[in-house]
């Protein structure tokens, strides 16, 4: 088998993984800040501008540009929303630089965000925020941002490695720095090792190990799995954000799990149980308009009560608002539901909580540097900015702000770096052997294992967790991993062999599922997205800790570290005295 494996070698100066908001901004900023003649390469698992999740952003972009709003207020909302777990310096940088980045998007990149009648930017309200702060382009904000960024990148002398899947971060022999990244050129099915002086990883988290999930199909936690194998510390790994209303259309369709937008509940949509009754007021005084985590738990609790096997989820109902009004106001959503056979405007659409965003990630500093020389991480792969919960509208802000920061930082750092570093050939060989594992085994059914993992994570490490459940989850994950290692793939051709990539996807997802579960066991309280039925209280805010997971040999160890309140302490605020608690009318 190994005789057939070809390895190509390639060099660049700045290598960027990913083509969402982080990757594209990193490429543009690296080009602006690096010395002339620096070679920049953008490598993506799919096509530039198409794969990744920034493109899928519906809601919008949080930025303190609205009347009366301030960076301080955006920062306080981010800290409160993250239940005091965010790295405060990162959260501050996020809110402060979002202002610059939105101006850059409008003025230099060419995005056009929706306007008020007088021509000023329109800021819409989003749950959990004390100001109308979210700029947007209808409910297709991500398409506008990524299309415009993509044009800028495609028109510049930036080398493109499309459909190149990263499978290993390869260090130098002494382990002190990164040498480069090992890829599979998916179209040809060959391995390619690319050395670079600096590498930015922006592959996007994406918790697709859950039965119901929203992210793009290419996202399978490859970045975090690579960082784990390299021995980097990962923080907040228990924090998986569920969106309350994912479409439920059956196991056989890729539509299942995709988001029905937040605005449906905001506009007055009802959630109904099997008997046709509203239930959210049993859980929260705000009813359907409660925050994502609360509504997700309400739906989940109601699902557990239901004994009718024909009905898995709950229903969203909009028809009391007038079907015509719904068709006008939510044109895109109504059309999308209709395409998969549901009538959102006048009928009932079955919904379930769906894994949406991953707050956890690699430990980085506010300049995106990691514990290893030469590696930078931005976007959903980086942990810290959101703590235990991400506010709607802070995701695209995070990826674009920190992608740009990474590009600037790499452009500066590369000036003081010498020549390219040689890889540890032993690690390189081991990564290739790992990827080839299924090619020498009898072909099995990878999709069955994916379903098993998704069931295990949904049932035992999902919306509501207990120690017993998570221990059971760990056992299930270990069994699934053992089965995966025994499951082969038809390798008669390696060119665009999606089943081989499904296997590799499963390997990444299995590794990170274990980390999520162990971090979940380590957090013995309930904060934000992480809810422990056996520890329902938030715990002492002043003694807040975050989890840090790291590989130690074959095992994963999880430690706790205290949150450093570098800017504000629980119970305090940095808003000037006399500022109102909220600027939102009728909040």
């Amino acid at each position, binding site marked *: 088998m190994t005789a057939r494996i070809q390895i190509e070698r390639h060099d660049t100066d700045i290598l960027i993984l990913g083509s969402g908001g982080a990757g594209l901004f990193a490429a543009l900023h690296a080009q602006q800040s690096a010395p002339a003649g620096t070679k920049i390469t953008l490598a993506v698992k799919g096509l530039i501008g198409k794969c990744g999740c920034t493109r899928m952003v519906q809601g919008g972009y949080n930025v303190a540009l609205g009347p009366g709003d301030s960076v301080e207020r955006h920062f306080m909302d981010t800290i409160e929303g993250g239940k005091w777990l965010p790295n405060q310096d990162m959260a501050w940088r996020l809110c402060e630089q979002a202002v610059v980045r939105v101006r850059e998007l409008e003025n230099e990149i060419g995005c056009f965000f929706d306007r008020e009648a007088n021509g000023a930017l329109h800021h819409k309200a989003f749950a959990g925020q004390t100001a109308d702060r979210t700029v947007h382009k209808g409910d297709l904000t991500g398409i506008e941002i990524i299309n415009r960024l993509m044009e800028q990148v495609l028109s510049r002398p930036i080398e493109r490695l499309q459909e190149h899947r990263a499978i290993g971060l390869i260090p130098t022999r002494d382990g002190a720095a990164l040498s480069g990244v090992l890829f599979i050129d998916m179209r040809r099915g060959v391995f390619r090792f690319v050395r670079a002086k600096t590498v930015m990883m922006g592959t996007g988290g994406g918790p697709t190990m859950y039965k119901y999930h929203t992210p793009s199909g290419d996202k399978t936690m490859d970045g975090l799995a690579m960082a784990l194998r390299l021995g980097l510390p990962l923080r907040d790994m228990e924090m998986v954000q569920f969106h309350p209303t994912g479409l439920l259309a059956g196991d056989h369709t890729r539509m299942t799990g995709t988001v029905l937008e937040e605005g449906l509940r905001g506009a007055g949509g009802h959630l109904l149980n099997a008997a046709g009754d509203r239930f959210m007021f049993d859980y929260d005084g705000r009813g359907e308009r409660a925050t994502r985590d609360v509504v997700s738990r309400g739906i989940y609790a109601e699902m557990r009560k239901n004994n009718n096997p024909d009905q898995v989820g709950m229903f969203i109902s909009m028809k009391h608002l007038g079907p015509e009004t719904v068709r006008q106001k939510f044109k895109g959503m109504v059309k999308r539901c209709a395409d*998969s*056979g549901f009538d959102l405007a006048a009928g009932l659409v079955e919904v379930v909580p769906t894994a949406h965003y991953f707050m956890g990630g690699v430990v980085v500093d506010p300049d995106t540097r990691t514990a290893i020389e030469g590696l930078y991480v931005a976007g959903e792969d980086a942990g810290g900015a959101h703590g235990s919960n991400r506010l709607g509208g802070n995701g695209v802000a995070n990826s674009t702000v920190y992608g740009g920061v990474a590009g600037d930082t790499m452009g500066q750092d590369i000036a003081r770096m010498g020549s390219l570093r040689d890889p540890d050939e032993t690690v390189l060989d081991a990564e290739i052997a790992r990827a080839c594992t299924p090619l020498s085994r009898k072909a099995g059914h990878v*999709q069955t294992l994916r379903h098993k993992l998704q069931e295990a994570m949904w049932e035992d490490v999902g919306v509501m967790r207990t120690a017993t459940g998570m221990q059971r989850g760990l056992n299930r994950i270990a069994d699934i991993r053992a089965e995966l290692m025994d499951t082969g793939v038809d390798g008669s051709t390696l060119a665009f062999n999606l089943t081989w990539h499904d296997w590799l996807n499963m390997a990444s997802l299995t590794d990170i599922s274990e980390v999520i579960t162990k971090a979940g066991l380590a957090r013995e309280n309930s904060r934000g997205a992480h809810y422990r039925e056996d520890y329902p209280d938030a715990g002492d805010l002043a003694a807040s800790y975050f989890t840090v997971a790291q590989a130690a040999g074959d095992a994963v160890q999880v430690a706790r570290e205290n949150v450093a309140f570098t800017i504000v302490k629980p119970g305090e605020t940095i808003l000037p005295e006399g500022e109102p608690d909220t600027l939102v009318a009728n909040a």
Partner: protein
Amino acid sequence: MDVAIWKGDGAGGQYEHFAVPAEDNQTILDVVSWVQQNADPTLSYRFACRVGMCGSCAMMVNGTPRWTCRTHVKKVLKDGQLKVAPLNNLPVVKDLVVDMDPFFDKWIKAGGLHAPSKTRDDDIAAIAPDTDGRQNANAGIECINCSVCYAACDTVRSNPDYLGPAALQRAWTIVNDEKHAARGAVLDLVAQSDGCFNCHSMGSCTAHCPNDLDPMQAIARLKRAAIKHQLAGGGRDA
């Protein structure tokens, strides 16, 4: 149902038949995925977002270019049969995967990128949303660059150099964008031999756009603007 799927590469290929179980809520992408996951593990196709936002998964379905993630089987099934092939007018990589680079190269060639008139240090321009220019620009802004119009276009088929509907629609958006600093240059670009004057207004682009955009009308207006610009001397920025 009987599903015929084209398998091959740039050198050629043939249809292979698969019996795929029918389901209630089933898209063409689901059918293709079922075949790869259960019947032919080496079948290649491309998708990403699953919800009609990324424009990665377009294919020929019973002879028509479509976004497969949002095309319900019931809508296109003919006598219990489906025929799925790689998108027309683009080079095949393998099976149902095409190389989209020529499409994007033309997007850039038609001037499809912003030329800044301000910087990140400046305030955001106040722009009234209801002016004619802004309405024109908005009309094409939701393009997901899926290449369905490009695959449907007879002119692209007969003249591979033609920039095609999506790229020209983007150019029309730019010509109407008051923030763009070099709109005249874009009008010069689209007036060249591979540009908007190749369009015969057959309308396949508009008929097939999954987002109900109207590239044909955008190109017709672009032609008028380009002529006006040439008569005024061309070259200068509008």
